[in-house]
C-alpha cells in the first residue's frame, strides 16, 4: 500500500484518474512544469504533456470558465485555484455559470468538472492566503462541496469528484498537506462518496463535529479530553454539500451535547447551518446548546495567525461549557 501525505494524495489521484480516462485534464496557474506552488500536480506535466496539464494565464475567471467550456464537450477538467481566496476573481463563473448550467439548460449541458483549492490558515499567509470560503459555495445551489482532512479521504473524494457528473468544489487543508503520512487505498476504483461523514471515534460525553484543517485540532482536543476521562464522539463531515445530516443528528440525539469546530468566520458560517439543523431536529434531546468554536469575524490576521484558529484550548473551553450546562 502506498504511503503518502495529503498533497501527494492529490497528485497520486490525479495521475491515476488521468491514466484511466483521457477526458481528465488539469489546468491552472503553474500546474505544468512547476507542478503547482504546493506541488499538488508534480510529475503530471512530464507524464501527460502540455495538452493535458495546461498552464493558464493568470485569471481565475478564465480558468473556471475554460474548464466549464471544456466540460460541456465531455471533458473532465480539474482546475486548480492557487489559493482558495483567489476564486473570488472567478466567483461569477463558478456560482452563476458552473453551478447553474445543468439547471438552466434542463440537463442539455452539464459541467462535470472539479475546482480544487488549497484553503485554511496557520501558514503565516495573512488574509489572502489563509481563508476558508467554503460557506459561499455551500450556499450556492448546484455545487457539491467537499473538504477532506486525511490522505486516504483525499484520494477517495478527489476520485469521486472527478467521476461525478456534477461540478465539485474540493477544498484541501493546506496546513495539513505535509502533516501526516498514511497508507492510502491502492485500488484505482476506490472512492469515498460525496455526502458521507466519517466517525473518527465514539464516546458518550460529547460530540465534536469538524472538517478540513480543523480536524487536527479537534482530534487533539479529543485526546486531551480522553486524558480527563471525557469520552468524545468525533465526526469528520468531509462533505459539506450535501452534508451527512443523519450521522450528525444520530450522535447529537444520542449524546445531547455538541461542539462544532470550524476555522471559517463565525457569523453565517457553515456550522451555523449544522447548529440550526440540530436544534430544529433534535431539540428535545439536547442537554446543552450546540456550541460553535470558529474563526473570528475579522479578515484573517497575519500576526495572530495561530490564535485565529480554533485550537484545542478554545475547543476545550467550549466542551467544558456544554458539559457544565
Amino acid at each position, binding site marked *: 500500500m502506498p504511503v503518502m501525505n495529503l498533497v501527494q494524495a492529490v497528485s497520486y489521484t490525479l495521475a491515476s484518474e488521468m491514466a484511466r480516462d483521457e477526458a481528465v485534464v488539469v489546468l491552472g496557474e503553474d500546474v505544468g512544469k512547476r507542478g503547482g506552488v504546493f506541488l499538488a500536480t508534480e510529475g503530471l506535466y512530464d507524464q501527460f504533456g502540455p495538452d493535458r496539464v495546461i498552464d493558464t494565464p493568470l*485569471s481565475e*475567471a*478564465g480558468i473556471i470558465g475554460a474548464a*466549464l467550456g471544456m466540460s460541456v*464537450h465531455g471533458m473532465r477538467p480539474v482546475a486548480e485555484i492557487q489559493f482558495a481566496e483567489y476564486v473570488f476573481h472567478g466567483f461569477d463563473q463558478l456560482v452563476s455559470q458552473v453551478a447553474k448550467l445543468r439547471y438552466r439548460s*434542463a440537463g442539455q449541458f452539464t459541467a462535470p468538472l472539479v475546482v480544487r483549492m488549497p484553503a485554511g490558515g496557520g501558514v503565516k499567509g495573512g488574509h489572502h492566503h489563509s481563508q476558508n470560503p467554503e460557506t459561499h459555495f455551500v450556499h450556492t445551489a448546484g455545487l457539491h462541496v467537499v473538504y477532506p482532512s486525511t490522505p486516504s479521504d483525499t484520494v477517495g473524494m478527489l476520485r469521486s469528484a472527478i467521476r461525478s457528473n456534477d461540478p465539485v468544489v474540493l477544498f484541501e487543508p493546506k496546513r495539513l498537506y505535509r502533516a501526516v503520512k498514511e497508507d492510502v487505498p491502492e485500488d484505482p476504483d476506490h472512492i469515498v462518496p460525496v455526502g458521507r461523514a466519517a466517525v473518527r471515534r465514539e464516546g458518550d460525553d460529547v460530540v465534536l463535529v469538524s472538517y478540513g484543517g480543523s480536524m487536527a485540532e479537534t482530534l487533539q482536543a479529543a485526546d486531551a479530553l480522553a486524558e480527563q476521562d471525557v469520552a468524545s464522539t468525533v465526526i469528520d463531515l468531509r462533505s459539506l454539500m450535501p452534508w451527512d445530516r443523519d450521522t450528525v443528528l444520530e450522535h447529537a440525539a444520542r449524546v445531547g451535547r455538541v461542539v462544532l469546530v470550524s476555522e471559517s468566520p463565525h457569523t453565517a458560517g457553515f456550522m451555523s447551518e449544522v447548529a440550526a439543523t440540530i436544534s430544529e431536529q433534535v431539540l428535545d434531546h439536547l442537554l446543552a446548546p450546540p456550541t460553535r468554536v470558529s474563526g473570528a469575524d475579522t479578515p484573517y490576521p497575519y500576526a495572530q495567525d495561530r490564535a485565529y484558529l480554533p485550537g484545542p484550548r478554545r475547543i476545550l473551553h467550549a466542551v467544558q461549557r456544554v458539559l457544565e450546562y
Partner: protein
Amino acid sequence: MIEESSRFEPFQDEPLRVTSDEGAWIASFDLDLDEAELQTLYRELKRARKLDERLGVLQRSGKSSFVAPSSGHEGIQVAIAKSVQAGRDWLFPYYRDYGVVSALGVPLEEIIGQMTGTLADPAGARQMPSHPSSGPLNVFTALSPIASHVPPAAGSGLAQKLAGKGDVTICSFGDGATSEGDWHAAMNFAGVQGAPVVFVCENNRYAISVGLEKQSGSATIAEKARAYGMPGYQVDGMDVLASLYLLRELVERARAGFGPALVDASVYRYGPHSSADDDSIYRPAEEVAAWRARDPLPRYRRFLEQRGSWSDAQEAALDAAIEEELDVAVRRAEAAGVPELGAMFEDVYERVPWHLEEQREEMER
C-alpha cells in the same frame, strides 16, 4: 501561430461592406453564392424579423414577461448561423440572438416556448425569456450575466482544438460586454491557446442607455483584438453578405488551425433595450430614423431584386408562410404546457439530494 485571413485585411479604418445602402454589389471580388443560397438568406432575415415582431406581440399581450428585441441585428445574426455547420460547430449566443438560433434551425416552437415559459423550451422554462438554447444544435444556453458565456466559449474552443477535428466555436455578445473582466479573460485565454473561436460583437453602440463613447476607451471594438494577438475586423453587420463572407472566412481560418478572431459588427437596435426599457429617454428619434433607413432587410431585398432574384409575389408568399409557421409554433408552444411546481427541484444535481427532497415536500404540502 495566428495568421491573417486571405481575403480580408484586419484593422481597417472602415467596416467591410460588399453591398451599398441601395443594395448594389460593391466588393472588389465576385459574388460566388448561388441563387438558392442568396434567397435563403433573405428568408432567414425575414423570419428573424417576423419572429421578433411576434415576440413583441406575445409580450404585449401578456404571454411573455419580457423580450429583448433583435430587429436591426438580423444581418450579422443570420450570417453567424450560416457561417457554421449546424450540429457540428458550437454557438455561444447572447440574449438578443433570436436571429442566430432561428436561422441555425432551432425550431420556432422551441424558441417561442422559451419566450413564453412553456415546456416546448428544451431548457424546461427554467430561465426568463430571451435565453434560447439547443442541445442537438450545440447552442449553449444563453444567460443573463453579461459576458459570462465568453470564458466557456474559449474553453469550448480549446476542447475542439485538443480534439483535433477542426470544429469551431462562435461566440456573440454586445458592445457593453467588452467592458467586463470575464470578456478579457476569455479573449486572452483564446489568444494564448490559439483556440478556434470567432468572437462576434453585435455592436449597436448602446448598452441600455450607455453609449459607446462612455463604454469603451478605444474608438472601435475591433482594435481590442490587438491586445490578444488576434486579428480584428470591422464589418457592416447590416450587410448580411459582408457579414457572411467575413465570418465564413474566419470560421475556415479557425478550422484550419490559425486560431481566434474578433469581429466588430456595426448594427443598431430598432427597439428599446427590452420590453422594460424606454429608449426615448436617451436616444434621439432622428438617430433611430437614420439607422432605420439602413435597415438590412429592404437593403438586401433591393440587392436581390436588382439581380431579378426576388419578386413581390415571392415576398407575399414568404410572409404568408412565416406567419403560418409562427402561428403553428405559438399554438404548439402553448400546448406544451407549463412546468409543474416540483420541476424546480430537478436538474440542480444529477440526483435529487435529501435536502431538496424535503424542501419539495414542504413546498408541496
